[in-house]
């Protein structure tokens, strides 16, 4: 009898919990637009285009070789693979039947038009901070793209993450809705920069480490994090850059993918800078002002940058010295034609000064290649030229030659890891 009462009690308790969970997770479907072909002010569409570049929407919402914004790109997460969705105005497979209201709710609250909770692989925890006019402009831009019929593949998530109502709990813990209040102690430009960086540009998505539930750790904002086989370096007081990032330097870097005082953008950041090249110049400048202020007092950039210690490194790594002389010096040696054009010394880039050799190895293996038809910093890929041992040797040589830091302890393991991740 007692057993039965207990059983009944726990059943009622469980039902109550489920009901409560349903109550917070249930979201209404917004009505489908009957006539998706609304017209928009061309000036607002143009503004939306610049914001879409700033947020690099196409970066995730375009499959390899696919049509822009038609989705289908797999995003690997610790919880499984999420496929990005089609955000062209196709009525059946895209957002053609989404009202402005439904679009705003998706960006601010992470809820699809049909009421489904979206996965935070879509950074609505950032987009929630975007301003109304910015969201309206983005909506106008996306709704005037050519409609592409393309249905995203079904997500492949580990149990129990396929059950979307669980996201209500995630949202309760980690979603802080609405625009950020301006900091009255800062300039208008700084505040605009922060609103964009924390909002549509979602910089923390790559540069802030995440917790076990995949949420960014606000207590470690911009402390550096791993993304797609690359280490996105800290953008705060812990920045490893050995030369100060002024707003002017950062602006040039973000806008062109190359800073004459630091380095070229590599890995996922390459795609980000190609987006920012087409964003509003004022917006990119504001973002540069914001991050320059976060890194202003980073201890790593307070002294003079390290000197080129070619002789020391050559003596310590004679085999790598020969490889460097035959493969790298033609561009990177002082006085090489590329250097005469004012390109930065290898000593000034961040990768050699990071705690991990990963990014240095990635750049050697993959090189730098702007997509077909786009200009940008270029370097041949050396993945097929060098053996694993030679890669490790050159990486250690570069660290010895261009930094004052101790050798990395784990270079061969890092090379193996990069090789395993695939270079293509």
């Amino acid at each position, binding site marked *: 009898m007692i057993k039965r009462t207990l059983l009944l009690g726990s059943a009622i308790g469980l039902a109550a919990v489920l009901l409560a969970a349903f109550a917070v997770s249930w979201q209404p479907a917004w009505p489908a637009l009957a006539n998706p072909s609304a017209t928009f002010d061309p000036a607002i569409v143009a503004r939306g285009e610049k914001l879409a570049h700033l947020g690099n929407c196409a970066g995730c919402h375009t499959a390899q070789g696919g049509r822009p914004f038609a989705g289908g790109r797999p995003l690997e997460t610790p919880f499984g693979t999420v496929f990005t969705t089609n955000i062209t105005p196709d009525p059946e497979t895209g957002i053609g039947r989404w009202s402005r209201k439904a679009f705003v709710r998706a960006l601010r609250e992470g809820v699809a038009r049909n009421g489904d909770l979206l996965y935070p692989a879509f950074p609505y925890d950032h987009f929630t901070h975007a301003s109304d006019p910015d969201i309206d402009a983005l909506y106008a831009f996306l709704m005037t793209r050519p409609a592409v019929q393309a249905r995203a593949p079904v997500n492949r998530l580990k149990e129990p993450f396929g059950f979307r109502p669980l996201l209500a709990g995630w949202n309760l813990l980690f979603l802080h809705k609405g625009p950020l209040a301006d900091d009255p102690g800062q300039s208008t430009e700084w505040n605009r920069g922060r609103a964009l960086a924390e909002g549509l540009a979602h910089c923390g998505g790559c540069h802030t480490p995440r917790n076990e539930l995949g949420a960014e750790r606000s207590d470690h904002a911009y402390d550096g994090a791993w993304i797609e086989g690359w280490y996105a370096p800290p953008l705060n007081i812990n920045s490893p850059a050995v030369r100060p990032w002024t707003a002017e330097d950062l602006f040039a870097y973000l806008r062109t993918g190359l800073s004459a005082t630091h380095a070229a953008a590599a890995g996922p950041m390459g795609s980000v800078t190609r987006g920012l090249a087409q964003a509003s110049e004022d917006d990119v400048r504001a973002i540069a002002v914001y991050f320059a202020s976060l890194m202003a007092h980073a201890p790593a950039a307070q002294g003079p940058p390290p000197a080129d210690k070619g002789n020391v490194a050559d003596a310590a790594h004679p085999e790598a010295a*020969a490889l460097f002389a035959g493969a790298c010096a033609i561009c990177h040696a002082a006085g090489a034609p590329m250097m005469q054009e004012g390109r930065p010394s290898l000593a000034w880039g961040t990768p050699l000064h990071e705690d991990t050799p990963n990014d240095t190895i990635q750049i050697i293996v993959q090189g730098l290649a702007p997509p077909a038809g786009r200009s940008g910093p270029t370097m041949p890929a050396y993945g097929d*030229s060098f053996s694993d041992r*030679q890669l490790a040797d050159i990486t250690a040589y570069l660290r010895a030659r261009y930094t004052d830091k101790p050798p990395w302890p784990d270079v061969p393991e890092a090379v193996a890891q990069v090789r395993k991740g695939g270079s293509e």
Partner: protein
Amino acid sequence: MITLTVNGVSHQVDATPDTPLLYALRNDLALNGAKFGCGLGQCGACTVLVDDKPAFSCLLPIAALAERKVRTIESLGTREKPGALPAAFEAEQAAQCGYCIAGMIMRAQALLERNIRPTEAELRAHMAPNLCRCGTHMRILRAVRRAATAMGGGVRNDAEDAL
């Protein structure tokens, strides 16, 4: 002395370890097919195969090679009996000035050895690192398609691939 294995033959080369493979091939071994274009890994005129993969020989120091097998255009048949790719390039008249062609053929050779039925998109992506200053890329692509067919495969168009 450094040992190089080129086109199946072992050679002793008297050169410093940082010498680019291209210089060793041309100056020491008289294999003049691979060309010096830019010297910066940007044009592909110097492309040869190293362990079956295309490499810019102008940026590959001979110290990196050790036991690895180098192949050059000279390994793909003779004037009288050309291999499938050189024959197809001739049939399509794919060369204008010809300076890039040895590199183009070696890069294409790497693709067709690995995959005799690439898609058109795979073919174009694979050939993208090599440039032709005369602009004969369309003829070059036709020649690679012809060679793929002659070798018993063929380049599939992408619509076919989507089916």
